């Protein structure tokens, strides 16, 4: 006698602007496999049950940062969230919180892209040295200062977990600030003074109240909340240095 394959129910938020005024939940029942992640189940639905379902994904291995979704209300990478952690209960899948919804599970990420470029997350030099002088060399200790913050995959789970961003969409936000801090800590970089204008603005580091949930949900263990507090400390010390030792020529 053939044993029936167990099944699991997924409630997926749908938003098709041409037919719905606001998002609704649609239930799908799929086969349950212990080694399936939520993204596998969604791909199965897309391929075999409902081709109209829209969502983003790419690498399926926690590297590209495309498949972030709210899974039972928590921001997670759907490629790294196993069905077995929820089975036999049903799973609710919604688009990342705090972002406008384009369609179904697809969010509008223009705001994040704009903020990311605002902090200039690349090496800035006052003047590039000629190629003949070789590369900018770094010691392992200099690399260790910022290495943790290079691990950001721009998945935006941190924005989704941040109540400050939810309440004040102008807030530059965790990932962008963590990346700015990453380049400020880089011994090859000289762009701190440019980034400081953004980081010290009203929408920058001081808007963060250190809720800390951005670091909890970060799949790459970047600790953006720590980066923001470290940037606050650096900014404060720089301010005191400028006031108390104006001749130091920082």
């Amino acid at each position: 006698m053939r044993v029936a394959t167990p099944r699991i129910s997924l409630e997926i938020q749908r938003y098709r602007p041409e037919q719905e005024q606001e998002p609704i939940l649609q239930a799908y029942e799929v086969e349950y496999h212990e080694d399936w992640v939520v993204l596998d189940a969604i791909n199965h639905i897309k391929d075999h049950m409902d081709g109209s379902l829209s969502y983003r994904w790419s690498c399926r291995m926690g590297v590209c940062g495309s498949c972030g979704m709210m899974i039972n209300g928590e921001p997670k990478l759907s490629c790294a969230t196993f069905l077995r952690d929820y089975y036999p209960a049903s799973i609710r899948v919604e688009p990342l919180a705090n972002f406008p919804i384009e369609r179904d599970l697809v969010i509008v990420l223009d705001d994040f892209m704009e903020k990311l470029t605002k902090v200039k997350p690349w090496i800035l030099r006052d003047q590039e040295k000629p190629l003949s002088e070789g590369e900018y060399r770094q010691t392992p200790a200099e690399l260790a200062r910022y290495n943790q913050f290079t691990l950001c995959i721009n998945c935006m789970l941190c924005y989704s977990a941040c109540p400050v961003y939810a309440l004040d969409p102008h807030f530059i936000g965790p990932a962008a600030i963590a990346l700015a801090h990453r380049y400020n800590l880089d011994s090859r970089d000289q762009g701190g003074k440019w980034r400081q204008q953004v980081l010290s603005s009203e929408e920058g580091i001081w808007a963060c109240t250190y809720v800390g949930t951005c670091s909890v949900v970060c799949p790459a263990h970047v600790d953006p909340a720590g980066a923001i507090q470290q940037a606050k400390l650096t900014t404060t010390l720089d301010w005191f240095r400028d006031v108390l030792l104006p001749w130091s020529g920082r």
Partner: protein
Amino acid sequence: MTPFQRPVSAIWWLKKRAYFFFILRELTSVFIAMYLVLLLLLLQRLSAGPGPYAAYLRFLATPGMFAFHAVALAAALYHTLTSMSFLPNIIVVRFGEFRLPAIAYAVGSYSGWIVISVLIFWIVVLR
């Protein structure tokens, strides 16, 4: 097509345990501020003479004030303990590639706290 903007609930801070404890931590500051006001009033009453000072001490000994101080102490402890737990992520101490582990911060801050408390106890009570 217009993207759908989800509204933020007024009770967002009740929806997640972490948000609730964050708001609770913010609220501890209110009790600490109220305690400081009582402390400033104590100094003001002290400067006003023995009579007003004794009256103020009687006021502080009322059950309501006792309950308030118990709550303010709990609030101060919660704020202090959480602040100490944040330290390793905020003040990064490095020796070359080695980063000082969180346990070192805990040992340092708790030891400092105990030493200062014992010192204050000695000055205020034992001396």
